[in-house]
Structures are given as structure tokens and as C-alpha cells.
């Protein structure tokens, strides 16, 4: 069967269930390949992913139509390039600088992790996604952003609603209904918060963004809100998801005991391998500015690309024949989970520090951590991928 024929038959459900065999076949047979089900040219090999994501003059971020614009309620940092993107980065980056994160994040995250582990330590079993990793992720970012007054469950509902819209490449009306309602609720909730933080600035990310934005308050709010929703989605969902994938990888592959014996020494390696193995955000979307050839395919002007960092992170020519395995001992090299080029994830270090603290304390606190044999983890998603649940047991 030709590449065009089998790619035509790929369904969203197949991608959601497990995209990696599909990506592997594309890397071998058709490394840049149009997938009608999602309306994107998939870019699957490391070399092409790095090239496309690093050259905005050839492949910009202005994907049209983009599920991001409707979901975020306007132009966010993800869909602009050049000077407009630099302006938004300049608002966002100061509070997320690694130097700032090193100085402030541990004291914000440690008590959240401690309280959550206190709540489950005596039980001997838990579902780690909902009882540890997602709450750490949303509560941690909520405090940094300046949304410490909101409940964890509200924030989790928000990122789930936004995620439904952001991945709606197939233009499903039911999915739009979910993300539209979420967007409206966030606008309603955050408007007064933004007004307060403009009047009484603190050191939070939102206050920093407001200080750096231009124009009157309503213009500032209109500029900031779409990008703030990107942060709510990416920042709240992904560190928790990646922590879950990392721990699932450790437990499934029999490498958890090594980490349990030396949590402080091995947690960094575990997190980096987890980010590579199941990258929580699968793509950077791009649009071809001009006609070009990429990975053997001829791309027309205006072609929408799904630049698959998740596939690059499994590329056998980079990672060797064991690319699909979670391997704590893997020789170190840079992975693609935070993207490439001007859109490299602004929150990379915040995410890393948060994940390390959650996973280190988990192994220190819960001896004999293992999977619940009756309820093994099930992964789902292609654009956003993580365990749906992670049931574990330990010696309480």
C-alpha cells in the first residue's frame, strides 16, 4: 500500500490510542506525510522536526485554521512569530527565568507535595494522576501565576476543557462546545483578577505580564488573556502528565527500585528520560510560508504541519534501536520535548523543578512503590499524551 493510501486511512481514534507505531512507520516509509483525519502534514524524523521548528522564515506559526485561536479566544504566543512573539516572550519570561525559578520554586512546590503525600501515605494505595501529579501541577502554577485563590479542581477542569479545543484539528462541534464554555468561564473568572493585579501588582507571572504589556488596561487584558490560557493549559497539564508518564515508565520497566534507592541522585535522569519517552506535548504546529521540500515531500504554500517532537524523541537514527524503551541509563543527549527555536517552552525549568520535587518526594515517602497489578496504567493521546490513571501500591 502506498504511503498516501495508508495515511489516508489513519483515524483520530488510532492516534489517540497509540500514535507511536504510526510515527515509526512514517519515519521509515514517508517521513513527511499528509494525514487527512487531522488536516496536517506530519513531520516525523528528528532532522526534519528540528529544521522545521527552528526556521520560522520557512515554516511560521500562523496555522490556518488553527484550533488554538478559537480555544484561546484570540492570538496567543503560540501562533505569532518575529516581533509580536518577542514582545509576548518579554512579558512572560521574567518570572520564569531559570535563575528566578531556582530561587523561588522549591519553596512554593515542597509544601504542596508534602500536604498531598501526607494525605495518602497511610493508605498503601492511590491513583497518582488525580491524587498527586495533577494537583501539584495546577496548584504550583496557580500560585506562581497569581491564581492561588482558585481550587485545584477548578484549575484541572480548565486545562481539560482547553485541551479538548486545542487538539480539535478535526473540527468536532461537540469538542468546540466544551472548550468554548471553558474559555468563557476563564474570561469571566480572570477579568477581575487581572484588574486587581494591575492595581496591586505582586511578583506573580500575571502581574509581571501586565506590567510589561502596552496600552490601557482593557488592551493589556485583551493582549494577555489568550496567552494566559496557553499557560493555563500547557503549564497546568504538562508537568503533571510528564511526571505521571515518568513514574509509569519507571514502574513498568522495573527501574523504579534504582530510583527508590537514590531518589535525589537519579530523579533528574528519570525526568529527562520520561520527557523523551512520552513527550507530554506531541507537536509544534507550523505553516509553510513558501513551497518547499521536506523529508522527501513537496509542501505547497500554506500547508499546515504537525511537527512531531514526540516522534523525533523516538527516532531510531538518533536514539538507537531501543528508542521505544524507557531507559534510565540511556546516554545523555538533548531531547525535543520542550521544542526548538524561538518557541522553545518558556516554562521548561519550572516544569523540570516541579516534576523533580514531586517524583523525588514520592519515592522518599512511599516505600516499595509498585503498580497495582489489577489496574495497569493506560496511556492516551497523540497531541497531549499521558496515563489516564496510575494506580499504585506501597508498604504503608
Amino acid at each position, binding site marked *: 500500500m502506498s504511503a498516501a493510501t495508508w495515511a489516508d486511512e489513519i483515524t483520530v481514534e488510532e492516534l489517540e490510542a497509540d500514535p507511536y507505531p504510526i510515527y515509526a512507520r512514517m519515519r521509515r516509509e514517508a517521513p513527511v506525510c499528509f494525514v487527512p483525519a487531522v488536516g496536517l502534514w506530519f513531520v516525523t524524523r528528528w532532522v526534519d522536526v528540528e529544521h522545521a521548528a527552528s526556521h520560522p522564515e520557512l515554516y511560521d506559526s500562523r496555522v490556518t485554521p488553527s484550533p488554538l485561536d478559537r480555544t484561546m479566544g484570540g492570538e496567543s504566543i503560540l501562533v505569532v512569530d518575529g516581533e509580536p512573539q518577542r514582545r509576548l*516572550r518579554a512579558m512572560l519570561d521574567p518570572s520564569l527565568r531559570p535563575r528566578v525559578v531556582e530561587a523561588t520554586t522549591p519553596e512554593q512546590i515542597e509544601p504542596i507535595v508534602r500536604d498531598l503525600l501526607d494525605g495518602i501515605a497511610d493508605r498503601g494505595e492511590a491513583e497518582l494522576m488525580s491524587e498527586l501529579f495533577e494537583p501539584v501541577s495546577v496548584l504550583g502554577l496557580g500560585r506562581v501565576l497569581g491564581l492561588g485563590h482558585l481550587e485545584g479542581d477548578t484549575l484541572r477542569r480548565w486545562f481539560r476543557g482547553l485541551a479538548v479545543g486545542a487538539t480539535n484539528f478535526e473540527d468536532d462541534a461537540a469538542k468546540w462546545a466544551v472548550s468554548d464554555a471553558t474559555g468563557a468561564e476563564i474570561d469571566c473568572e480572570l477579568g477581575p483578577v487581572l484588574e486587581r493585579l494591575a492595581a496591586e501588582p505582586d511578583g506573580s507571572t500575571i502581574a509581571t505580564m501586565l506590567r510589561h504589556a502596552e496600552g490601557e488596561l482593557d488592551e493589556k487584558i485583551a493582549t494577555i488573556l489568550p496567552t494566559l490560557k496557553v499557560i493555563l493549559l500547557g503549564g497546568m497539564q504538562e508537568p503533571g502528565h510528564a511526571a505521571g508518564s515518568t513514574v509509569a515508565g519507571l514502574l513498568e520497566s522495573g527501574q523504579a527500585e534504582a530510583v527508590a534507592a537514590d531518589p535525589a541522585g537519579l530523579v533528574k535522569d528519570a525526568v529527562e528520560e520520561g520527557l523523551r519517552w512520552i513527550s507530554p506535548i506531541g507537536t509544534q504546529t507550523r505553516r509553510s510560508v513558501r513551497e518547499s521540500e521536506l523529508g522527501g515531500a513537496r509542501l505547497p504554500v500554506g500547508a499546515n504541519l504537525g511537527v512531531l517532537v514526540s516522534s523525533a524523541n523516538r527516532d531510531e537514527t538518533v536514539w538507537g534501536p531501543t528508542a521505544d524503551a524507557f531507559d534510565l541509563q540511556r546516554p545523555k543527549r538533548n531531547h525535543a520535548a520542550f521544542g526548538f527555536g524561538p518557541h522553545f517552552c518558556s516554562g521548561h525549568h519550572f516544569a*523540570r523543578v516541579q516534576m523533580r520535587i514531586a517524583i523525588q518526594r514520592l519515592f522518599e515517602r512511599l516505600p516499595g512503590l509498585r503498580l497495582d497489578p489489577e489496574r495497569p496504567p493506560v496511556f492516551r493521546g497523540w497531541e497531549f499524551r499521558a496515563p489516564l490513571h496510575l494506580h499504585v501500591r506501597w508498604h504503608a
Partner: protein
Amino acid sequence: MPDERATPHWVDVGPAVEPDGTLREARFGELLLGVARAEGVWHVFDAFCTHAECPLTDGWLEEGAVRCPCHASLFDLATGSVLAGPALEPLRLLPVRVVAGRVEARLPLPGRATGSRFRTNS
């Protein structure tokens, strides 16, 4: 007692016993230092990458160089020079000595240790 922060001074950054390939961190207030041994020599440097501030202590050694985990910049540990970009400015190396089996580094004057300006990844 003179304020020791007012003048450059030597600080202990750990034992000088690990083998080549060792990369560890040492903290002094907000200073984050990388402490590395390559080809039999100890090196101490300001750990925040000169490109986008990623801690190089999250990276790794490649022979006589340290690799940034974020954007893959590579710095020569002996000279500080950039062997591979995107970083443009050299690694900030500190003077190092080994005294009685301990590695010591001389801290710069307060305020000058971490004087790089932050650049976004553009």
C-alpha cells in the same frame, strides 16, 4: 571581622575525589556553581548558561566540555569558550585550587558573579 562578601574569597565546593566526568553543583545564596572534573582537572563555573540561563548542572560533560540540556550549547571547560551555539558569550569560569583534598573556588565580588543579561530564545 571584615564582611567576607566585600572581597573576593575562596570557598569549599566539595571533595576532590570523584573521577573524570563528574559534574555536580554547589550553592552559595543565589549563586549556583557547576563543579566538574575533566581530564584530571577541576573546573568551577557559574552554572547558568550564558544563552538562556538553563542550569548547566542539569547538563553533562562531553570530554573537556559541558553541554547545555536546553539548547545544546557546548562550552570548553578549560577556556570557557563556546564550542557550539546558540550561546554567544563564554562560560564564566572561576579560579580553582585544590587544597588538602578539597576543591576550592574563588567567588567574584558580589553583584558581578551573575552579571549576564537574559536573552530570549530568538
